[in-house]
């Protein structure tokens, strides 16, 4: 339904067509989506037209994209951290010798 609505507004019967659901069942789904804020609908005459609530979807999309940005920023920081410290040849898991993090490998082995 959301996929169909992402292409533009549609009536309840148009939404139900590819789903082989009764009109009542489709209407119930629409009402659920409406309550969740994802979809809004308007009744014109005998037809109820539904459309996506772009604001609500954008909110989730922004959240997801900011989550991704956050991970990217952290991995950039990891790069800086690794550059500030050095590999010790043959040291295996021995961490970098920074005074700030002397205990960094203590919990490494499960």
């Amino acid at each position, binding site marked *: 339904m959301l996929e169909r609505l992402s292409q533009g507004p549609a009536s309840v019967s148009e939404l139900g067509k590819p789903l082989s659901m009764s009109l009542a069942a489709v209407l119930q789904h629409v009402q659920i989506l409406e309550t969740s804020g994802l979809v809004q609908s308007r009744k014109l005459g005998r037809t109820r037209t539904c459309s996506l609530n772009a604001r609500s*979807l954008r*909110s*989730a999309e922004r959240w997801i994209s900011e989550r991704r940005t956050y991970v990217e920023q952290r*991995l950039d920081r*990891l790069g800086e951290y690794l550059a500030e410290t050095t590999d010790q040849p043959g040291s295996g*898991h021995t961490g*970098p010798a920074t005074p700030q993090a002397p*205990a960094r490998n203590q*919990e490494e082995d499960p």
Partner: protein
Amino acid sequence: MTERSVIHDTFVIERTYPASASRVFAAFASREAKDAWGDTGDIAEAEPATGPVEFDFRVGGHERFGNVYQGITFTYDATYYDIVPDQRLVYSYEMYADGLRSSVSVATIEFVETDDGTTLTWTEQGAYLDGFDGQDAPRLRQGGTSEMLDGLAKYLA
């Protein structure tokens, strides 16, 4: 009755570091190391939340912490499922805002040593629940949602 919505997403991020796989892996393997590089410096406004703080880096172990930002308590609760030293990490985590579960995700971090160092691949699959505009969380709609999400994104992992 509260109605629900879910939005699914997967993202993949790849980085290559001029360091051995064991050193990159070690950066994830202790709280001290994670704190050393995880701080993005923009968390001055956030305050620690009262609640469990845990870093139990072993299969079945939890990582938990929380903070308060703009009056909302955010908590992070992760469970480690797979730990292959120097090669792979799989964990799931839940995020809560004021006690409401807002997302459930699976993160897989792979470490592959190459001639250039170590390639890290971070794959994260998430189910984002009820949106931030959902009627479940009316408080989240108040004030600058974007700023709040910024703070959440920067502070919680």
